[in-house]
């Protein structure tokens, strides 16, 4: 088989290491969230805290990965950078979707019945981010030719990441309703909630990294398979 060795992505040992770390963290995370005290005001609903904000970091991180990898692709022209960009966008879309699903569930519980959705600054921003992710993936599937797809997607990824601070600034400026806490400071977490929150962030970070590495590896293998077979096939 011709083509690059698979070490063009992440070495297999690193991917496996991430997988093992995740496997070890998950049960501890589950147990500690189960053990965490129940909030006196919000009740059991408050435990979404250990899932929802960590998902947000993954969603934003995915976009940053996509933009940086896209920039590297435009600069160096190496296919593996584009494959990393796809991985970032797909894993980021997953995290962003889950965040948009968990958010309204918590919102209704915390902000009262009927409050599934409010046009809060951060909510609006996330929704827009999600649309940018979708547009990115649609652009990839509608563009013909591997090299051209990679090029166009890289450009869109870079514009997309610029949109994050820009949208945040504008939405804040035109007065979106601010329902989210300004910042989750250590002090604002109740007794016994700090540790599960920290572990939630750690576990979901490992989940993000593991999925990213796996997806990157898959994209590389896919292109190797295409090169080995009779030309590129349309996998979509």
């Amino acid at each position, binding site marked *: 088989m011709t083509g690059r060795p698979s070490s063009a992505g992440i070495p297999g040992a690193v991917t496996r290491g991430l997988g093992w770390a995740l496997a070890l963290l998950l049960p501890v995370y589950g147990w500690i969230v189960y053990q965490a005290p129940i909030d006196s005001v919000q009740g059991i609903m408050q435990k979404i805290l250990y899932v929802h904000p960590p998902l947000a970091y993954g969603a934003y991180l995915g976009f940053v990965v996509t933009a940086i990898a896209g920039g590297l692709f435009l600069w160096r022209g190496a296919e593996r950078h584009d494959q990393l960009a796809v991985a970032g966008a797909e894993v980021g879309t997953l995290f962003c979707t889950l965040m948009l699903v968990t958010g309204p569930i918590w919102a209704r519980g915390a902000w009262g019945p009927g409050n599934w959705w409010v046009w809060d600054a951060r909510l609006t921003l996330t929704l827009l981010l999600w649309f940018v992710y979708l547009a990115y993936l649609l*652009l990839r599937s509608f563009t013909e030719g591997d090299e051209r797809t990679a090029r166009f997607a890289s450009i869109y990824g870079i514009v997309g990441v610029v*949109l994050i601070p820009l949208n945040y600034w504008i939405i804040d400026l035109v007065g979106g309703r601010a329902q989210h806490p300004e910042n989750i400071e250590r002090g604002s977490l109740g007794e016994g909630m700090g540790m599960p929150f920290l572990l939630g962030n750690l576990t979901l970070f490992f989940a993000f990294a593991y999925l990213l590495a796996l997806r990157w590896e898959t994209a590389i293998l896919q292109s190797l398979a295409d090169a080995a077979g009779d030309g590129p096939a349309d996998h979509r």
Partner: protein
Amino acid sequence: MNVALALLWKDLLCEWRSRDRVVAMIVFSILVVVVFQFAWPDRSDEQTLALAPGVLWVIYLFAALLGIGRTFTAELENDAMTALALAPGTRGWIFAGKAAASLVLIGGVQALTAAVFALFFRVDLAPAIGALALVVGLADVAICSVGTLFSAMSVRSRFREVLLPVLLIPSLIPVLAAAVQASAAVIGGEKLTLAAVQPLIVIAGIYAVLGFLLFDPVLDD
């Protein structure tokens, strides 16, 4: 720079001879103005005034999408896209020429739409005309910049009519938000302050620079 001027001239001349983009945008815009009447039949003059900036900007946004979508369709014939890519000098200037041509066409359609809107609904836009033109012009720089960049990509994709709005609208939300707010203030009789147009200046600047720099790889075929 000469490339930009040449392209601007070429696009305007082509449009003058065919008039297809402008006519499509004008008919669409006026139709939506009429639709507005049937969407809110029983409204007071105050309500019309309150809705005016939003309605105008919804029309502007979609009319612009219509026009921008056709920025590069003429270049698909006879593979003129390749000829553009081979033009001497920085490709950013090709982008600048194309975006400037769209800006002129879209700006003209917007002025006409505003006049028709004012006429149909007795909204007096005359005192605010200068300030409104500034707000719309700045927003147009932003719209035409990202619009030209994405249009050059979507025109060579499948389902280009669907793809362009999907790509473009998320990036136009900040423009729209800032423009609606500034327009509402101006139409409401307030004086235009620097603080009101500052977001538009920033966005227009960022998008123009991004378009100029990122246009180069778009034509790399």
